[in-house]
């Protein structure tokens, strides 16, 4: 158990280090940062001042070293645009993104699990085809467009929900639904295929031979095994949702981390962009680690002898 945790932690750290390097490389792709920061109207002198002030005159390897050293202790420097510590900036915005992600995941699971179980139980019949149709529609739906449509419908025409902002829980309903829509197809398909696999397995035949009730076979014996991959994918999906919330946050003007990143990209505010990429990557790795642990609880075979 401990060995496993340590091994996974080492992998997680290596992934973080790789992303750290990539994030740094990303910002240096554009050539001279100082020119970008100083802005279009700056004189040669201004640019030199900026270069000195941000330490961009040092050799690349030194810059990299100092960025890594500080990032390792959570210091991502100061935002060029917001003139604020990047860490505190992200800290302020994170709750909104996490709330959105969790709302989205909850809605997605509330839709996918019943749909997947229903489709598997009715494999090949009308209900199954309808569910598969829904997943296809969900897969094809551009999330930003769905967001706009919902805004027109519920925000303007019906006036039920606020169109943008973060004032109340109602503000999270539409974005949550849209975000959930991005995860529903994958989760439903996985639940369905997992359930179909479980239902055609030998132990389900045993359960039927034991004369157990249909409900007990479906929910106790099949779902428990089908749920194992779903948990892992749900965690991965949550990671993707946090990363993908940038689109939805900008549609609904939710000032979360994604929105922050979008603004910062527009403003050439590299420390913020670097930091957001890194933080999201670390969260993703943490989520997959957590999923492994939950799986170990669900699947006795993974607990070892």
């Amino acid at each position, binding site marked *: *158990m401990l060995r*496993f945790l340590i091994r996974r932690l080492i992998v997680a750290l290596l992934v973080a280090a790789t992303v750290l390097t990539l994030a740094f490389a990303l910002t240096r792709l554009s050539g001279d940062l100082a020119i970008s920061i100083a802005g279009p109207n700056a004189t040669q002198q201004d640019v030199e001042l900026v270069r000195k002030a941000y330490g961009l005159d040092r050799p690349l390897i030194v810059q990299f070293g100092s960025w890594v050293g500080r990032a390792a202790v959570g210091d991502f420097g100061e935002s060029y645009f917001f003139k604020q510590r990047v860490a505190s900036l992200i800290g302020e915005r994170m709750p909104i993104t996490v709330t959105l992600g969790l709302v989205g995941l909850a809605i997605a699971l509330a839709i996918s699990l019943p749909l997947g179980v229903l489709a598997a139980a009715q494999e090949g019949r009308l209900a199954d085809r309808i569910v598969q149709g829904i997943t296809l529609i969900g897969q094809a739906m551009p999330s930003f467009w769905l967001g706009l449509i919902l805004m027109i419908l519920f925000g303007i025409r019906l006036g039920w929900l606020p169109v943008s902002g973060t004032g109340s829980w109602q503000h999270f309903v539409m974005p949550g639904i849209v975000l959930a829509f991005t995860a529903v197809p994958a989760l439903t398909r996985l639940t369905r295929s997992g359930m179909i696999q479980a239902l055609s397995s030998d132990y389900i035949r045993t359960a039927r031979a034991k004369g157990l009730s249909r409900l007990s076979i479906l929910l106790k014996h099949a779902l428990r095994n089908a749920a194992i991959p779903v948990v892992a994918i749900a965690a991965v999906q949550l990671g993707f949702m946090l990363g993908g919330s940038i689109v939805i946050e900008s549609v609904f003007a939710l000032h979360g981390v994604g929105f922050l990143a979008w603004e910062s990209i527009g403003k050439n505010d590299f420390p913020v962009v670097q930091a957001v990429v890194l933080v999201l990557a670390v969260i993703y790795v943490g989520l997959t680690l957590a999923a*492994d642990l939950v*799986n*170990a609880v669900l699947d006795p*075979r*993974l*607990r*070892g*002898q």
Partner: protein
Amino acid sequence: MSATPAIEVKSARRTFRTSGGLFGTAREVVAVDDVSLAVPAGSVLGIVGESGCGKSTLARLILGLLPTTAGEVLVDGQRLDGMDRRFRAELIQPVFQDPFASLNPRRRIGDIVALPLVAQGKFAGAEIGRKVAEMLERVGLASDMAGRLPAELSGGQRQRVAIARALILRPRIVVCDEPTSALDVSVQAQILNLLAELRREFNLTYLFISHNLAVVEHVATEVAVMYLGRIVEQAPTAELFHAPRHPYTRALLASVLTPEPGLGVPDVGLGDILPDPANIPPGCRFHPRCPVAIERCGSVAPPLLAAAHSRVECHLAVAGAA
């Protein structure tokens, strides 16, 4: 007796690392442990043992599909590692157990049988076609089968294709790894008869691996019994079946259910403890299940008692118990 053995295995050992589940510690499994054997040219060595005893791993070592962890394998007196792949193919060929996995589902029968010829790179297309047609006919398949896909064939027919592929280069040695275990009884007999005919015709040497003792008795000239990675007894077929010396051989023979009504199911006398290759017991590895084990068996590894044609590893075989 000076002739080079077709196959010679010298103190071969093969271990695997298994991950012990997500949280378990990785363990080392000894699949083949210090196995030595020699198969004289023209004979059939049968290898029997239960699942996990290492017989299939041994086959893969002899085919060169797996490298040995220690020891060496000589085929026709030459070391396998470093041997040219084309040369090796002309020497030794396999027939595997599962006739559904051993043929590429996307290639036609003719191409499958021709593969060893194509790999040699020295045969012209017309010659290949002629040889393939001949071989298909020899194993009892209509030559129009060449254009079919494996999925269109039955299990027995597929196994004939596998045999045709193995013999098309006229190798000296064929390693048959449970060639009839996946087949029905009526088809198994066809394949066994075919293998026997081909051996006489092409003067082949077989290494014949099976868990079915009756089948091994039928085809083998000599039999080796494997238990947890070691050969615990080896003898000419008739001797082994009529005067088994190792208690495990006796138990195996006792568990053969011949179709003779009225005899009931015998008591094989083995306990419930099953062999675990990752956890090999000290002393004699069979002692936890052995019905006649004495104290020494639990601590001291049994000596090898070798005679001209037979050998056994058992403390109690010293007295020549039979």
